[in-house]
């Protein structure tokens, strides 16, 4: 499915910003930056442009780019391109403001974007070739999925929204020093429950790969194209446990004891709306 064409990374200065080469892979994307901005691209290439992996889009790329930028900065609002889901950005901690100093600009054709205070800038990466047919199949599957998802186990918009802080920001509850995630209801007054953000990292305690036929209906259209989907049971570094899908473009062996980092990806589509959540990158 994914053929490694060339290991990263060849940089070619195209103008605009002078970039530094520090850890070009971040949260599964090519991301380079300096103090003035960031360029983020999918690792996959179809012909002469970058193409999104099976569970990525401009929103997931933008969140990762903003996360990278905020390792050294503290930027909470951006002017966002219309291709980016501002609601998901907000849940991820980034507000949309057309007047903001920092702009997120998506490339009109290629799976890449730039966060800048100035003008769009670019760098050339080699990447991993991805088959055009595969991309088309996945894109078609996302569209089909959006209108035909489960009638049996239905997660309503309200239920999904209520849990989005926990699902995307890893917001947990702390009661008498004990951390609970995912959040639950307690016979306590709300003043006794504090909120805390968990580190998006942990260790695999168990895992499985479901054959396409064993996947829930939410994934039944894409799973055959992907060759199945993998799930990890993770003990988070902060204590609680959780289950997470592995990113669709994972090529690493999954082992008990392996470290994982949780990153934003597309989970599934319902009512023509993509639902996002955290998936695991095997470290």
């Amino acid at each position, binding site marked *: 499915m994914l053929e490694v064409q060339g290991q990263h990374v060849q940089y070619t200065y195209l103008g605009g910003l002078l970039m530094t080469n520090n850890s070009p892979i971040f949260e599964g994307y090519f991301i380079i930056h300096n103090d003035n901005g960031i360029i983020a691209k999918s690792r996959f290439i179809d012909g002469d442009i970058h193409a999104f992996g099976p569970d990525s889009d401009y929103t997931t790329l933008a969140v990762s780019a903003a996360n990278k930028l905020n390792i050294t900065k503290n930027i909470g609002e951006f002017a966002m391109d219309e291709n980016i889901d501002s609601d998901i950005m907000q849940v991820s901690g980034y507000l949309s403001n057309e007047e903001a100093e920092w702009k997120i600009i998506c490339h009109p054709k290629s799976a890449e974007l730039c966060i800048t205070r100035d003008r769009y800038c670019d760098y050339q990466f080699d990447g991993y070739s991805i088959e055009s047919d595969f991309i088309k199949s996945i894109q078609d599957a996302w569209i089909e999925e959006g209108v035909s998802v489960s009638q049996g186990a239905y997660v309503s918009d309200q239920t999904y929204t209520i849990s989005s802080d926990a699902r995307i920001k890893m917001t947990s509850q702390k009661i008498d020093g004990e951390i609970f995630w*995912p959040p639950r209801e307690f016979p306590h007054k709300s003043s006794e429950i504090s909120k805390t953000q968990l580190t998006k990292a942990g260790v695999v305690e168990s895992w499985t790969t479901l054959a396409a036929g064993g996947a829930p209906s939410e994934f039944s259209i894409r799973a055959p194209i992907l060759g199945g989907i993998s799930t990890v049971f993770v003990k988070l570094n902060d204590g609680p446990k959780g289950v997470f899908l592995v990113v669709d473009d994972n090529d690493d062996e999954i082992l008990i004891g392996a470290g994982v980092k949780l990153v934003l990806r597309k989970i599934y589509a319902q009512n023509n709306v993509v639902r996002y959540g955290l998936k695991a990158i095997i470290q």
Partner: protein
Amino acid sequence: MVEVAIIGAGQTKYGNHEQGLKGMWAESALNAFESVDQNFDPRIIDEAFIGSTAFGGGQLGNTAALMTEHSGMDNIPVRRVENACASSGFAMRDAWLAIKSGQADIVVAGGIEKMNDLSPERKRFWLGVSGDTEWERLAGLTFPGTYALMARRHFHEYGSKHDDLVNISVKNHTHGFLNEYAHLRKQVDFDKAKSGFMVADPLTLYDCCPTSDGASTVILAADHVAKKFTDTPVWVKGSGAASDYLALHDRPSITELIATKKAAEVAYKSSSLTAKNIDLAEVHDCFTIAELLATEDLGFADKGDGGNFASQERGLRNNGDVTINSSGGLKSKGHPLGATGTGQVVEIFKQLRGDVEKGRQVDDAEVGLTHNVGGSGATCAVHIFGRSPND
């Protein structure tokens, strides 16, 4: 305190039925009525509890009323009991409690599910509705996936192996081969069971039960009326039930089912019996790893020794201290979700009365146990039965 007896029990064959819900229930109920030694008129039934997940949504509401109107049980109080795959295990408990309370003398517990009249896609829609929808399902998990996580962790913590699970599959197919009510009546050898295609790594096809149509019916009676119908009732000696967190990640361990342990503890205590007293057990082997965990959680094997228990064939009929799943279990007999719990009781009723087909009888069967689990362990009902009432 009143003692509770089973005076009759029957079921349909499990599998792919030409009959719909009404026809299957009527057949199951008739089989139960006809199993009563003395003439039995269903109009004397006081109350009924019918387990079903209403798979497919064909008759989601008032399922029980629809069933009883087709079995001569008109105008009695009825309700559908829903606890996923443990629905009729809990219907059994509710029926037992109704008689124990003194409010009813003759009560029916039963279950029904129609699973194979749906398109594959719609069936898939329903197969995961009883797991944790908000977190597990959106992490790609239905029950093969959750049990696969348990299996791999058990392998890691206790050194059990997939071959142990293969042995469970082979045993249950051996048992079910002779059961004329079983869905998958075929002998499966070790190599065949080991080579099944992967469903949820490490679980293969031969680790998974089939989806079955079927119904089962049990007639319970208070001790003072039971003797009117039979000289050989089967006595309900103990009942226990419990629940647990719905999602695996909220539980302290995924290599045991707390609901099973708590339900068994109550059932053993109420019967003044222990695991050592059990001659045969119908345990909830929706996946082979579930049987391995059950043998540990019910006390038939030490914690971590469930793999050895399986590979040493200690649960094979008349081969060890206890026979596990003499019916073939969910793996071979089949798993019509809501019908499974009381279907397990049907098997114990027949075994304790010596009424099973040739070659299937568990020797010297005096005490039997049923273990019915909902989902990945969110609910569990355990019952203990004997040929004699409690002292």
